[in-house]
């Protein structure tokens, strides 16, 4: 199982209290994880990436294993620790405030 950590607002939208666990078939990539996430929680379509182009929204980042994977190709394999569920795939909203 892949573990995905969502920011608070997306947990609220998806009506989950914590990280979500997903089955991902085949190679575990950023695109495959997001496909599985949106299939399990359709309300999240459009919140992380564009619904048509699948381009990441500008204020969203992807972290895992202490690395920023935001600019990795969507079809690049994610680290083994993510693929095994040992480490979460983190969807992060960019910090802004004031």
């Amino acid at each position, binding site marked *: 199982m892949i573990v995905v950590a969502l*920011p*608070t*607002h*997306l947990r609220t*939208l998806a009506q989950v209290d914590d990280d979500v666990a997903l089955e991902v078939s085949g190679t575990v990539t950023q695109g495959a994880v997001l496909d599985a996430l949106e299939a399990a929680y359709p*309300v999240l*379509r*459009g*919140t*992380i990436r564009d*619904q*048509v182009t699948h381009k990441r*929204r500008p*204020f*969203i980042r992807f972290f895992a294993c202490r690395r920023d994977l935001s600019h990795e190709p969507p079809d690049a394999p994610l680290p083994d620790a993510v693929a095994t569920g040992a480490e979460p795939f983190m969807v992060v*909203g*960019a910090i802004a405030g004031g």
Partner: protein
Amino acid sequence: MSGVRLLVGTRKGAFVLTADGRRRRWEVSGPHFGGWEIYHVKGSPAEPNRLYASQTSGWFGQQVQRSDDGGRTWTPVGNTFAYDGVPGTHQWYDGTPHPWEFKRVWHFEPSPADPDTVYAGVEDAALFRTTDGGKTWEELSALRTHSTGARWQPGAGGMCLHTILLDPARTGRIFVAISAAGAFRSDDGGTSWRPINRGLKSTILPEPEAEVGHCVHRLAMNRARPGTLFMQKHWDVMRSDDGGDAWREVSGDLPTDFGFPIEVHAHEPETVYVVPIKSDSEHYPPDGKLRVYRTRTGGDEWEPLTKGLPQRDCYVNVLRDASSVDALDPCGIYVGTTGGQVYGSADAGDSWTAIVRDLPAVLSVEAQTLP
């Protein structure tokens, strides 16, 4: 006894304020969708417990929420707003071509007859419609692809379609307004459109009487007289008596004719309300006094309404969708401020009270008159 429900959109959630017909004591529920910007919430005239809310975020995009029980519970519905075909470009602030990009829904206008049919005005400016209660949205693309579209330019708040008026007397007649393109009318249900900006003068334009490019802030009509329209433009309060074919200025003796909202009394088609704001570079009321101005003569002669409104040290703004009237007698009028107050008057503006004082900045107010 009949009552009023105010649907209030703020920078950090939606609030529902309810009162009986006396409009003295209000119950407040919310925040709904806490932390999200709620640009607009509006109910169906055909089924008042059917509400639609525009929930948006710079981080997470657009959600559309629907309630079937007057705002107690909500369900997310369709949030795909795809422009028809290849969107092309409009002008950017610096005059260069810029691709059309969907950002958010500014305004919902439900059909008066069918609770499943709703029009949505969006940024970048376009008109969408659902006929299945919000599950799917289809663009009425003849507006965006109008021959003038490539010349439209965003106002400071973005290139938004913020006003939609459905003519109750002429099936298929729709008025919309876009900042900063101007006002447009369709007489065939959105199949074709034409600019209706004759008579507008905007000194911010190189050609002040141009066909398009005017920063129209808001349109309003009384449903009993839909051929008469009132407009709050960036500067100037305007009036048309021929469905927008021609406009004349009715700013008259207002202290300033800059402002955002404009409303028409529910029962008196010549009684109109505006909230004068000092200027486009200051965005607060003149002299630190929040005054709603009322005309009973269709314009030109205006009186300040001050009783119960702050008359010193007040520097809030009232945004374009943050005023509304109810249909009770006497007519109630409501304004929400960027300071988080919602002021209400149950006597057509003669006196006001603060219904709430400390909400997040108010983006929109809609009054529903309940049976």
